[in-house]
């Protein structure tokens, strides 16, 4: 991407984020709290003073219930750009985050890096911090993603953005369920079923488990 295009995209992303903020009726302080990004960083991103990173973009969108891919598509349209690899990077970053959340590793990425480095060293791969950050940003190399997919026990094609859409949606739902269960303090779950669970059914299961835990242990904040 040329320097001119990159600047146009950053400006358009800032504009789309401001628009999304308006739609969500959220102030910067609240947005900062929800996204775990400092409020001054958000100010600078919204004012176009600083480019938003992929991880920040995903977090900001999730915090207000917007879809990062759709927001990028709107920004690209606004900037008159055709994004190929950029969207791919966001998909991969989004999935890397979900896989890390499902594994309980997202809250402390430094500790997660140490664990990943240790796990990968057993197969002869010396994971550098730069490679780790690239993976989190959705820009990890093919071989690196395959190695980390094994560590995270998630299909590599999914993390690489190559899985068929229906398969990706099912893995999204499985990882989302795992993330939700961890947040409820559930340490193990087994579902017996007649067939693979569709995403809607996983949502029903999640809701039923949440309701029973609320009833037995009280609602979580």
């Amino acid at each position, binding site marked *: 991407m040329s320097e001119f295009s990159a600047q146009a995209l950053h400006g358009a992303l800032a504009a789309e984020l401001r628009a999304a903020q308006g739609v969500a009726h959220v102030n910067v302080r609240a947005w900062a709290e929800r996204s775990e990004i400092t409020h001054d960083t958000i100010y600078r991103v919204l004012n176009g003073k600083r480019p938003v990173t992929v991880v920040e973009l995903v977090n900001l969108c999730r915090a207000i219930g917007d879809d990062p891919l759709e927001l990028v598509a709107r920004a690209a349209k606004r900037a008159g750009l055709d994004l190929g690899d950029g969207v791919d990077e966001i998909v991969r970053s989004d999935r890397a985050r979900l896989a890390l959340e499902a594994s309980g590793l997202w809250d402390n990425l430094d500790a997660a890096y140490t664990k990943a480095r240790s796990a990968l060293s057993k197969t002869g791969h010396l994971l550098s911090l730069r490679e780790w950050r690239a993976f989190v940003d959705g820009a990890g190399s093919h071989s690196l993603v395959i190695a980390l997919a094994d560590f995270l026990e998630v299909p590599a094609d999914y993390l690489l953005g190559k899985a068929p859409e229906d398969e990706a949606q099912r893995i999204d739902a499985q990882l989302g369920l795992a993330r939700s269960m961890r947040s409820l303090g559930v340490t193990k779950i087994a579902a*017996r079923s007649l067939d693979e669970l569709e995403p809607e059914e996983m949502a029903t299961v999640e809701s039923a488990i949440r309701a029973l835990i609320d009833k037995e242990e009280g609602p979580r904040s």
Partner: protein
Amino acid sequence: MRGRRQGQAAHEPIAAIAAALVWRTPLPDVAEFEDLCNAVSALYGRRLVFDEIKDASLRATTGILFEAETFTGILVPADDSNYYSFLSRTHELCHLIVRSAPEDWFPPGTARPHQPAPDSRLFLRLCPRNSSESNDAESVREELIVEEMARMFTRRLSAYADTTEEEHFG
């Protein structure tokens, strides 16, 4: 599909393991489902809580077993017949027996299916019964054992001891 899967040892007698675990579970001579729950709770060392899922959107799920902080939850669909619900709840209890039975409950030459490590990413286990989706051989082996155990428990518990599957499933 219930045939042998990859990773399952050819000599592994699923039925023998199931029978040993079922008959070594301490129950009164005339036992009810409640007795089985109490026995499993004592064996597993956790409070058991049962509930039903009333949502009509449930299509494939027949049972959910999960470990919350202070209890072990078992969920089954509300719409299932009494017999099927009984089988599903018993099936989930059998998972707990497999996990916590003393080693000497397993017949000589057999072993407990490997359990995921506490920090495993595989703590979420989905066990479709009629699919080749389950590629974790140990999950499949455990599933075969507990399916067999659940059927055997219908003979040990008084509620359905004198009935046949054909009566319930047609």
